[in-house]
């Protein structure tokens, strides 16, 4: 690109114009990227994310002011009024500007930011969710105040206006739990439970992502977070606690047969059926989830078929085998059955 500018004979003006338009374009793209924000710290939708957003703004504005001061001082002493400093005033500048001022500034920022850290881990208002990171998906268990547990996977639903505690574990390697629009990031470490809590304020669907490299499909280890009004959440939780709905159509019934024949129940649980496997995600209500394959596909019949027939292509090194030998008929039936598990 640069060679073209230099060799096209239009000289400096053209080059500068191109540079400016490129910078403008980059700026627009960056801003556009920020605005859409389902997975953005710049689009805070919860208490904790708002707090972190404020913290980031304070730090950014502080850094900007500091940078402008240093740059202005630099220009002043080198361009506007260059002169020789006495040893004493030079030392005053170094000790004052290089030691005392930064120590006080960093101390003030530390005092301002430390209390924010513990508020990100406040106790919950009654609901607790245990999340265990697997390669490369999420085990999700809702623990009710009475001790009952409701098992789900690859999706987190939270009531708005209430603080939900998250007990985080990992199975084999270190992962990290992060929903940028709702709060900070917490590592998930095998053999060591970590805790954080989230308090969403705006209902909506946000995206979370594993934020610690955890193997071949780390980038494909995501999940959807649905923040719901408390009544809607309570209704959803009651439905999630129920057993799976039996297949309603002949095609879905055929799909249930394929599910049993292929041994899917060896790894997956569908509550209310013989399928009680614990290796892979719980599929009891998989048809009602927003996404499939831990946040990488939408949740339609074609997507189920696509996933089952191309698991290795869609998620390299995933434990689930690729069922590419299934006939189109069987595949469609199986996908219809799964999509119907609402």
């Amino acid at each position, binding site marked *: 690109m640069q060679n073209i500018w230099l060799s096209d004979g239009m000289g400096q003006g053209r080059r500068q114009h191109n540079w400016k338009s490129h910078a403008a374009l980059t700026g627009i793209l960056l801003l556009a990227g920020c605005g859409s924000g389902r997975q953005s710290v710049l689009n805070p939708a919860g208490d904790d994310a708002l707090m972190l957003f404020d913290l980031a703004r304070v730090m950014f504005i502080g850094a900007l002011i500091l940078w402008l001061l240093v740059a202005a001082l630099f220009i002043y002493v080198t361009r506007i009024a260059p002169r020789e400093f006495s040893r004493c005033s030079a*030392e005053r500048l170094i000790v004052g500007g290089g*030691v005392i001022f930064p*120590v006080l500034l960093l*101390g003030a920022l*530390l*005092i301002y930011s*430390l*209390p924010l*850290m*513990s508020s990100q*881990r*406040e106790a919950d208002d009654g609901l607790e969710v245990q999340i265990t990171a697997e390669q490369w998906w999420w085990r999700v268990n809702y623990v009710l105040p009475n001790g009952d547990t409701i098992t789900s996977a690859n999706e987190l639903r939270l009531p708005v206006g209430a603080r939900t505690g998250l007990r985080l574990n990992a199975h084999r390697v270190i992962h990290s739990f992060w929903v940028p629009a709702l709060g900070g990031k917490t590592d998930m470490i095998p053999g060591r439970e970590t*805790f954080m809590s989230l308090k969403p304020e705006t209902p909506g669907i946000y995206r979370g992502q594993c934020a610690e490299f955890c193997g071949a499909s780390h980038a494909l280890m995501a999940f959807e977070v649905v923040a719901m009004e408390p009544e809607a959440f309570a209704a959803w939780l009651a439905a999630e606690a129920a057993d799976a709905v039996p297949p309603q159509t002949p095609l879905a019934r055929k799909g249930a047969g394929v599910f049993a024949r292929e041994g899917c129940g060896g790894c997956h649980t569908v509550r209310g059926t013989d399928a009680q496997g614990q290796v892979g995600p719980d599929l009891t209500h998989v048809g009602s989830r927003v996404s499939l394959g831990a946040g990488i596909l939408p949740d339609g019949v074609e997507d189920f078929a696509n996933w089952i027939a191309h698991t290795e292509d869609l998620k390299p090194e995933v434990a689930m085998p690729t069922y590419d030998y299934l006939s189109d008929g069987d595949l469609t039936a199986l996908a219809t059955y799964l999509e119907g598990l609402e």
Partner: protein
Amino acid sequence: MTDINKHEEQKRFRAEATSLWKITFGPLVWAVHFVATYGLTALTCAKGWPLDPLRIGVGVGTVLALAGILWLGWGAWAQWDTLRDREWENDAPTDEDRHQFLGHAAFLLSIISFIGVVYVALPILLFGSCQ
């Protein structure tokens, strides 16, 4: 330098021969405060003990450590003696310069130790929980 002067100087700063390790006192206070603070916090959080005694203990320990460092720093400042002789650097190969240089080094180490103790204590004094 005459022999008499030399003799005088040797007599005045004889203590210096064994006092190199004196400059480690400031960082040593910092290190003890650091280990005690981190150790007590880990113990309190692991055992689920109440936090208030920990915070009071760390607060008292911090005040003591800072007082100790201030005292050491004051002694080092006097030893550096930069206000009286207006010598910022002491790089001559004499016992007096060695004496003052060690004061200078100990003074700077006291400053960094003071800041270190404050920054180590702040999280425990400001955090409301073990989380």
